[in-house]
Every structure is written in structure tokens, then in C-alpha cells.
């Protein structure tokens, strides 16, 4: 949490993200760049603005599961971001997956490149199921309902509300208002 705060301050101060871009290939567990940290926090912050169908949860207190498929770009940033957070009374947990199977229990799926399964394969695996799929277009990986983009040095996202709606997910208009382009 302390890290995120510091990063945000840096952002507010107008620090350019570009300086950090170079290090993404060799980003280790400890050294997470600012952009990635922001994406990590956004990933869980989508949760309050999404309404899952009742069937997505078996019990009222079942945690919201964020699945990170393929290579994990966030490192400890995501764990830190979700620590202690509750959405609609549910805690948030993170699962790291090599492969995404249709029966894998996920509420939010961040699909990254992986040797075993391509992003598209991962997305197809959960297609039709109420899983909010997120990819990072700024890293050249597109697809899914939400794609992270960088606009004028800021992390933003696109939303494909139509795709989400087909699976029974409802996305709050507050979130839609913040999307840079809304796909149909």
C-alpha cells in the first residue's frame, strides 16, 4: 500500500511514465514499475463497479477471485493492493494460473502471454462465462472486455460492454464513463 501511495504521488507530480518503460522486460519480483503498480490497483478496483450474476458465487461471503494467467507482470503490487480490501463484503484473493481451464473459478481474469497458452486461448477458455477478462493492450496484448491502454502518459482502459453483457456481467456507468473508448 505504501508503495502505491508513493507511486501515485509521483504520478500526480507529473513524473513521466516513459522513463520506466524500458525496464518492463527485466522486471523482477521486487522491482515493479509505476505503470504496472497502477494497473495492479486498477485490476481490483474494477470489482466494485462490476455486478456479477448470482451464479458466479456459491456463497454470499465467497471471495472475489482475481486470476492472473500466464506471466505475472504485477509481482507483489497486486497482493499489496488487495490486502484488506473488501468489495460488497467479500474479500479479494489472487490466483496465479499457468493455464486457464473452462472450469477454473475466476471472477476477474488478467490474461498475459504464457508459453503454455496464448492470451486468445485463455480468453476462449472462459468465453461465455461471467468472468471479467482484462488484457494489457499497452503491452501489445489485446482482447477481453477491458484492455489497459496508456493515453498521454496515463493508464486508462477500454471497455467492451457488449461482450461483458453477453456473459451476464453488468458494468457500472461510472466505470463506463471513465473508459477511453467503449467497444460495442
Amino acid at each position, binding site marked *: *500500500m505504501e508503495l502505491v501511495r508513493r507511486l501515485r*504521488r509521483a504520478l500526480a507530480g507529473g513524473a513521466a511514465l516513459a522513463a520506466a518503460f524500458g525496464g518492463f522486460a527485466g522486471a523482477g519480483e521486487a522491482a515493479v514499475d509505476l505503470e504496472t503498480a497502477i494497473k495492479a490497483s486498477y485490476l481490483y*478496483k474494477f*470489482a*466494485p*463497479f462490476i455486478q456479477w450474476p448470482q451464479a458466479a458465487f456459491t456463497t454470499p461471503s465467497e471471495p472475489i477471485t482475481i486470476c492472473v494467467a500466464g506471466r505475472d507482470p504485477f509481482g507483489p503490487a497486486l497482493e499489496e493492493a488487495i490486502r484488506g480490501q473488501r*468489495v460488497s463484503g467479500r474479500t479479494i484473493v489472487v490466483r496465479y494460473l499457468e493455464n486457464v481451464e473452462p472450469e477454473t473459478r475466476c471472477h476477474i481474469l488478467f490474461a498475459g502471454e504464457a508459453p503454455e497458452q496464448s492470451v486468445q486461448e485463455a480468453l476462449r477458455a472462459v468465453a461465455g462465462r461471467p468472468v471479467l477478462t482484462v488484457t494489457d493492450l499497452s503491452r501489445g496484448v489485446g482482447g477481453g472486455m477491458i484492455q489497459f491502454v496508456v493515453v498521454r502518459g496515463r493508464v486508462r482502459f477500454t471497455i467492451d460492454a457488449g461482450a461483458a453483457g453477453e456473459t451476464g456481467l453488468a458494468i457500472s456507468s*461510472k466505470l463506463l*464513463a471513465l473508459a477511453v473508448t467503449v467497444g460495442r
Partner: protein
Amino acid sequence: MLARLSSRGRRLAATPVAGIAVSVLLLVASLMLGLHDDELGRAEKLREAQVQAQILAGSLAGPLAFDDDDATREYLGALAVNQELVAAGVYGPDGRLVASFRRDGAPLPDAGRVGPPVVENGELIVTAPVAQAGASLGSVYLRATTETWSRRALRYLGIATVVLLAALLIVVLGLFYASASAANRRLQAEIKGREQAEAALRQSQKMEAMGQLTGGVAHDFNNLLMVASSGLELLGRTDDPARQEKLRRGIGEAIERGAKLTQQLLTFARRSPLNPQVVDLARCIRGLHDLLDRSLREDVLVELDLPDGLWPIEVDTSQLEVAVLNVAINARDAMPHGGVIRIDAGNVPGAGGAGDMVRLTVRDTGAGIAPDMIEKVFEPFFTTKGVGRGTGLGLSQVYGFARGSGGDVTIESVPGAGTALTLFFPRSTKPLPVEPASASASASEAEAAATVLLVEDDDNVAEMVGGMLRELGYATVRSENAASALKRLDGDGGPFDLLLSDMIMPGEMDGLDLARHVARRYPDLPAVLMTGYSQAAAAVSAQGIALLTKPFTMETLGEALRQALRAGGREA
């Protein structure tokens, strides 16, 4: 007087004081109302600010969560339009200030904190958490003025103005009322004063009239008494029969004048027993013609215009004659160089509830009466004639007679052209009596032989009346009162032919009671009453009992007794 003034002053002062008190009360009440209103307004303001904070917090959830500072500032900017907001801040989940605006250097906390609403220096501070689906995303802070000082002052100034105007109105009304009531009191006092003055004036007029009356009566009576007493004295000193006869006649005339005077006084006072008879007015006046001609001067011509078919009236004929004579004498005296006295009569049909009347007008061509004198002519002892020529009772008698007969009298006069005096008498419903075939002037023997029971308490009067009766040829027995008279009638006193009684006597029964008793018990015994003055006289006349008015002459007495005996059926 001083006390009244001071009390009036107190009253005058009390009304404005009450007005001021009322206005102070009004002021306090409106102040309390204003404070209460203020309280309500503040609560309303608080709710409003809270709602605003919640709306802001709700719309800021997205921008705060995803660091959209532009959108955050936009929302805040929209809020800044509200002039009552002096400062607003948006804080992230970590309490860091994300965006803000402030007016006139209003304070704004550095870190976001959610707490209950606070009023600080008249400004309202509300906070609201920004949350989405239970996830805390930050907080908003709003600082609003409850009401600008100038606006509140204006509001209070408005209330104060209204209250002050109302108070002013009350004070003005109070002053107006006080002055009006003071004027009313002055008016009342003045009315009272005038009433007192009028009463005093009436009283003095009454006293003046009384003085005139008593003075006039005393003057006339003294003259008559002078004649009588000196005549009697001279009578004792002379042996000359011719001179004695002359003196006796002088004394008799004086007494007769005295009797007339009292008669006229009583007529004026309407206490005189009128002896009303149903008569034809035209016939009565024609009968007076000779008397009028004799009483008036040669240069005064009397013209009569008396139509036939006048309604009958019920009046005392002798009083009527006296009245006409009085009016004619006045007319004569108003025409020192001669003229015409015109007497005419007519029927006056009643209208508007008034009954039918018969009018008798005596018109002269004399000097007339000045307008300011007209009202006084009917007052007793008012006269324009010289000393010794008039009594001032003539028109008083006319007035008393007319009113006593149920009629009226009016007078119209044009100075220099003449006077018209009109008498009105009510029409009588009774028929005219049939004329007696022959009114015998002398007592028949049968009548003269009758025995009269004389009831009289006064010895002197009894002796004199007894003497007159004996002179007339009647036998007479005297009783002193009603009780003894009844005893005589019941007992051995023998049959009486006539009862002659005084009206007012000591004892339980007076003359009228006696006459009524006798009429019931001895219907064949006629009764004649005598009186000098009595309020019951009218009742006597009304009951058809013959009445003799004292003083009376032997001739009058004889005539009354003859009539009574004839009415009692004694002539049979």
C-alpha cells in the same frame, strides 16, 4: 377638577404605553419566531449540504478510483457555482487531497476524514465517504455558510420594519382613541351642563309663572276683598235704604267676580267639573249673539257663518259661552277703532287616526299678535291689556276648556291684519237631546213642598244652604256626615224627596260614595252633589249625578233641585 385632569392625563398616557407594550411583545414574539425559523433553516441547510456531499461523493467514485483528476475537478467546479459553498475538498482513500476549491481563503483540512457535521464560526462542515460497493475510495469535504450575514440582516431588518410599523400603527390608533374618548368626555360634560342649565331655566320659568299666577290672584282678590269689606263696613254705618241696597249690590258683584275668577282658574287647571251636554254648536253660538252684541262695542260688528248640519259635540255649554265671550272680548280689544268679528264653524273629517272634529273659528280684523307673543297668550295672567282691564285668564280659560273637552285650540295671527283663533271639539256619537216642551222657570208647588236631606260638615255652609232651601220653599233636614245621613234614611227620619250632599266630608264615605250608595239602595231618591273643588268632580259628571259648583246662587240651586226632582220622576 385637578384630579379629573390628572386622571384624564393618565388615561391619555396609558393608551400609548399599552401600544408600546404590545409592540414590544410583538417584537419579542417575532424575534423568537425568527430564531426558530433560523434553527429550521439551519437544519434544512445541513440536510441540503449533506445531500450535496453525498451526490458529490457518489459521482466521484469512478474518477477517484481510477485517478481521473480532470473529471474530479469538473465535478468540483460544477459545485463551486453554489455561492454558499466556501470550500470543498476531495480526498483519496489514503486521505490525500486530490482536488479542492476555496473561496476567500477559507480553511481546508490537509487530510480527508469522515465525521459528523460540524458548525464552525457560523459555517457548516459536512463530510461524506466515497465508496463503491462497500469499497472505500476516499472522502469529500464541504464547507458552506449557513446564511450570509447580509442576507440574514436583511431578513431581520424586514421583520423589524414590519413589527415597528405595526407598533407605530397601534400607537397612532391608541392616540387617536385617546383623543376621541377625551373629546367624547368633554362632549358628555357639556351635554350634562346644558341639561342642568335647561332644567334650571325651566324651573325659573315655572317659578315665574307661579309668581305671576299667585300675584295676579292676590291682586284681584285683594281688590274684591277690599270692595266686600269696605262695603260691609259702610253698610253698618248707614241707614239710608237706597245706599244700603247699592252697597249690597256692590258686595254681591265683588263676590260674583271672585267666584268667576276661581272658576276660571279651575278651568285653566282643568280641575273644573265640566258638565258636558250634547249640543248643536250652531244653535249655541246663535243663542250667544245677543250677549255678544251687548258685551261688545257698537263699532264692532259680529258676523255669524254657521252652516246647518254640523256634527253634534259634547261640551259644557256655559263654559263654551264663556270661552266664546272671552275670545270675542279679546278680539274687540284688539280692534280699538272698530272692526268685524267673524265667527264661523265647520266639520273637519278625521284623517290618519284622528277622529272627526267640529271647528269654531273666531276671526278679527285687529292689531294681531307679535310672533314672539303667540306662544304666551294661553299662559295664565299673561295680558297685554292695562291694569284693571284684563285678568290674563281669558285665553287660559279657553285653552283649559278646549283641552278639557277633548279638543284643541290653535291661534294664527298676522300683525296688523288680524287674528284667527280656532277651537276644535270632538264629534259626539250621542244624539241631540229632545228639547223639553216647556222649561218652567218657577218651582211648582209639588216640588217646593219636597223635603231635602242636606249633608254638609261645615256649619256655616249648612246654615246658609239650609236658609236658601227654606227660602225656595223646601223642607230641610241636615246631617253632618254620610254615616248619619244613611242612618236617617234607614231610620225614622221619614221619607226624603232629595239628597243634597257636599262632596268632601270627614268619615269613611264622601259625598260621591254616599250618592252611589243611595242610588243603589233608594233608586227613587235623586241626589245632587255640591263641591268647591274636587278631582272627583269629573267622575261625578260622568256618572250622571247632578253637580253644583260652589259658590252658587239661590237661583242656580233652585234650578238644579227642580231638574233633579223632575229627572227622579217626581213631577208625576
